[in-house]
């Protein structure tokens, strides 16, 4: 079930991403309205992160057309913030917590310009929002996993974007941190921002997200969580369709031969 949206903030048409002929995301079509907290849910290897990265243009897509605010991603890149999984960072780099969050301001500005007091004020406020205001001068490697995650959320906040893409922000952190981060995301939603969260904990989906996209290589369902998060769709996402996806993969390979 893919719910059609009248005035979408993001539209994805016929998106296919493949690594060496293996489709990781297969013919995805969906759209999402503004101001939603969207969960992207599916089993391991279902292409959740790949979906986000291909929307951001971080990995090339085989086919597909993506519209954000009815425009190409490159022309609205300053309105989109992305929080990657923590592995993409060089932890030995000489940078304090404040330095890292400051980097978020450059998404908004020209990279050649220097930051002014207003920028630094926004950086401080962002750190306060994730309750990291007492850690300005810490080196990023001195923090615990949950604190590091909060710093990267603060960097995204400092970007003051309209759309947030977060790749598993809740993985490997304790419950207290998860609650803090969730409160921050709720606040963003209240401000009318749209947030996409790659998520793997099925228990919290109902509480966290008002819109859910179920994915297992192809989009199983996309719509309001209450409509989508049903036994039937979950069964198709987590087992039934696993074999179907594999069959499709095989067919595709065969047709290439």
């Amino acid at each position, binding site marked *: 079930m893919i719910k059609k949206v009248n005035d979408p903030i993001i539209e994805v048409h016929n998106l296919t991403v493949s690594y060496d002929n293996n489709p990781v995301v297969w013919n995805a079509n969906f759209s999402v309205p503004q101001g939603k907290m969207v969960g992207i849910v599916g089993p391991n290897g279902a292409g959740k992160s790949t979906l986000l990265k291909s929307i*951001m243009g*971080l990995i090339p897509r085989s086919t597909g057309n993506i519209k954000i605010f009815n425009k190409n991603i*490159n022309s609205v*890149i*300053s309105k*989109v*913030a*992305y929080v*990657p999984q923590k592995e*993409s*960072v*060089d932890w*030995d*780099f*000489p*940078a*304090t917590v404040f*330095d*890292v969050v400051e*980097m978020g301001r*450059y*998404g908004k500005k020209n*990279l*050649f310009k220097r930051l002014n007091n207003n920028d630094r004020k926004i950086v401080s406020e962002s750190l306060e929002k994730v309750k990291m205001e007492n850690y300005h*001068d810490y*080196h990023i490697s001195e923090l615990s996993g949950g604190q590091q995650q909060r710093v990267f959320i603060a*960097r995204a906040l400092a*970007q003051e974007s309209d759309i947030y893409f977060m790749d598993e922000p809740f993985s490997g952190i*304790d*419950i*207290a941190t998860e609650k803090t981060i969730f409160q921050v995301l709720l606040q963003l939603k209240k401000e009318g921002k749209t947030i996409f969260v790659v998520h793997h904990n099925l228990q919290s989906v109902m509480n966290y997200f008002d819109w859910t996209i179920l994915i297992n290589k192809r989009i199983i369902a996309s719509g309001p969580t209450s409509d989508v998060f049903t036994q039937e769709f979950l069964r198709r996402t987590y087992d039934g369709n696993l074999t179907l996806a594999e069959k499709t993969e095989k067919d595709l390979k065969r047709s290439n031969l």
Partner: protein
Amino acid sequence: MSFWRDLIYFFSFQDANIKYVVLGTIILGFTCGIVGVIVVLSKKALIVDAISHAVLPGICIGFMFSGVKNPIYLSIGGMIAGAAAVYLVDWMSRISRIKKDASIAISLSIFFSFGVILLNIIQHSENSNQSGLTDFLFGKAATIIKSDLYIFSIIFGIVILTLTVFYQHFKILLFDKLFATTIGLSEKFVQGLISGLIIISTSIGIQTVGIVLMSALLITPASSALFWTNSFKKAILLSGLFATFSSVIGVFISFLSTDMPTGPWIIVVLSLFSLFSAFFSKKGLVAKKIKLLKNKKKLLSDNIIKIIYEAEKSNNQFKKQRTFREIKNIYSTSSSELNSGIKILKKHNYLKHSQGLYSITDKGIIKAKKIILLNVLWEFYMDKILDVNPYHLPNGSETINQIITPSIEAELIKRNIEFKIITKNKN
């Protein structure tokens, strides 16, 4: 006395030649030092070796073109060859299954052997200007002349300008590539800039330290500097200063005795810096070891006083005088460890010692209560707030002090935890 005379003669710049050599070395050292930080953080340490070795054939061809040791021809030749080496490394690892480190090694040996052959051809030619070309192998700062300074200054200017203008680009890309891409920063462009910086600084740097030791001049000051600071800007500055200082010292040593090569001395001085930083900086081995020992001692003394207090509490008999052996019966550990623990407790006045007998003081009782309170708070914090079973976590009051900051402690106490502690202790 001759050492002091030499020292004064060297640094007073009476000799114009020495002035040019020292000025040239300062510019070179600083340039290579600041570029070095970018090299280390972009993990291009290996490729520097490939580039510096590739510069040799470039210099030889430059010499063959001009017929004299014209610094402009030599530098341009070196830069072109350096760029060719970077391209070769990229191309090889792109089109074939050869891994990057292997393609670096291949490219290095191809260019270097070609360079050595050219050097041989030049040496056997009739050209009398060729003397000194072999100095590029190990470096000889004494050959720096006035006209070299112009080239050095231009390259220094280019490096400073590039670093200032593209400072944010470097910082963001080197820290988090993926994030850099999401804000529209071109990785290819910045990587190109980095290669460019390495090539131009290498083409002048080999004059003082030589081809073989060039990578050390870039990498050693930077890795020393990174021990001292958490700021990218300061690391760059510090690395520049380390390299400058070592270069001047190295040049001075080779001035003292004419047969001494410059390059190796510069690197020896730099290595001393690096060694010192690795041991004695804020993030160095000694600081780490001291912190570890301090923590261990604190934990030990905390545990001893806590256990003595708990024993007295269960017998309802406070400030009892005990022999060393009696304490050892309560807190079983080796005598030497117990001794060092007791020493700390005595120093803080938590334990009193008279005529071979130990007894806990009022201050000691307060301390023990505080430790117990922190332990209970820690368990409560883990259990109720973080929602993890405290018994699944490694025990240790070092983590307690880290997590239960004074503000959290106040907050927990405000939430009427004291009541729980009292009930818990009564049970």
